[in-house]
Each structure stands twice: as structure tokens, then as C-alpha cells.
């Protein structure tokens, strides 16, 4: 069974601070997706990383896929209260298998 371990599980920081969320596995994935979920809503895709070593930026969010395609990180610069939410990583093994989800990182950014 493939597993994705996310850390930390909870993160509470002040507005303006930087943070990094990690997503690790012993399995290789063909791609890694990051989602954000707000209270009472379903997860929404932020980005997909496909190539080992790939870095993608989405405004203040930087996503990196590990060289071996087993791990990924999400770095937020100068966090804002609007970044508050549950961040989920999901690995795609290719073929017709469901995504494997991490348990999520619940981020709270305090003004």
C-alpha cells in the first residue's frame, strides 16, 4: 500500500512568516498534486508537479517535486490570513489507480 506522509499535521503562524509543508513517501509517483481545502468545502487543486526536481510558483507559494519523485514540499512566503486552510498532497501512480492522499496540514495564519 502506498502512503504519503505529510508534516507537520498542524501549523499556526503569524501573518508575514514563512513556512514549509512536507509530503514524503517511499514510493515513486508519476506526478504529485497539491490541494487546498477551506472549511465546509471540497479540496481545490493548486498545482501538479510532474518532473523530478521541478519547481512551480503560484504567487507566494512555491512547490517542489523531489528528484526521485518520492517527495514534495510546499513553501509559503509571507503568509497571509487568506492562506488559512487544509493543504493536501496527492500522489498519482499512473495507470488507472486512484490518487493517494496525505492526511493534510492544517494551517492557521493569524493576523
Amino acid at each position, binding site marked *: 500500500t502506498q502512503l504519503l506522509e505529510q508534516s507537520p*499535521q498542524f501549523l499556526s503562524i503569524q501573518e508575514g512568516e514563512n513556512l514549509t509543508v512536507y509530503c514524503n513517501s517511499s514510493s515513486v509517483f*508519476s*506526478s504529485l*498534486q497539491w*490541494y487546498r481545502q477551506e472549511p*465546509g*468545502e*471540497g*479540496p*481545490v*487543486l493548486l498545482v*501538479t508537479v510532474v518532473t523530478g526536481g521541478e519547481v512551480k510558483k503560484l504567487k507566494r507559494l512555491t512547490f517542489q517535486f523531489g528528484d526521485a519523485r518520492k517527495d514534495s514540499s510546499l513553501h509559503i512566503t509571507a503568509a497571509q490570513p487568506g492562506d488559512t486552510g487544509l493543504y*493536501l498532497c*496527492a500522489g*498519482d501512480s*499512473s495507470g*488507472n489507480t*486512484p*490518487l493517494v*492522499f*496525505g*492526511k*493534510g496540514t492544517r494551517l492557521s495564519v493569524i493576523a
Partner: protein
Amino acid sequence: DVKVTQSSRYLVKRTGEKVFLECVQDMDHENMFWYRQDPGLGLRLIYFSYDVKMKEKGDIPEGYSVSREKKERFSLILESASTNQTSMYLCASSLSGGRAFFGQGTRLTVV
């Protein structure tokens, strides 16, 4: 705008009732999924379907069944609701190997 629509945002049912959760997508996706989401446990896959009239068990299928009579509709059935099935239920759809689009979720309470 692409959409996955779940029939109810909130449901309260009694123990032993048969419960139907409906999900409809308008993107002509082959793949549809049902998850439940609980604090500390993340998203857990209940059932999924890659085609009409086709279904596969996920990680926690016990106590649930599904129906996919039409491509756009995927129903989750709780045969006899129990209190341990109180949870947030999320439906998703996708193309093969693609991003998952989630519904807004159904918060089910079994009393």
C-alpha cells in the same frame, strides 16, 4: 464552469436508516470517487468507478455500496446507517491520470 454537485450539504439520519448520497458531474469524466473525511484520518477512499455500471472497492467499503447507472451520476448508499458513519463525505471525478474535481461535501450526522 466545471462542476461536481452533491445533493445535500447537511444530512441528519437515524441509526438503521438507508441513506443515499448523490453526486453528479458535468465534465463527462470516466472516473468517479467517494471519500469520507474525518479529523486526523484524512481522506479515505470508500468506492470508485472507472465506467458506467463498474465499481471497485476502496480502502473502507464496509457498510457502504455504490451505484453508477449513468456516466454523470455516482451514488453512495449506506445500507443501515450507524453512528460511526457520521462524517464528511466527498465525491470527486477525474479523467484518467488527471486532477480530481471535488464536490462541496455532505456532512452526515447519524443519531
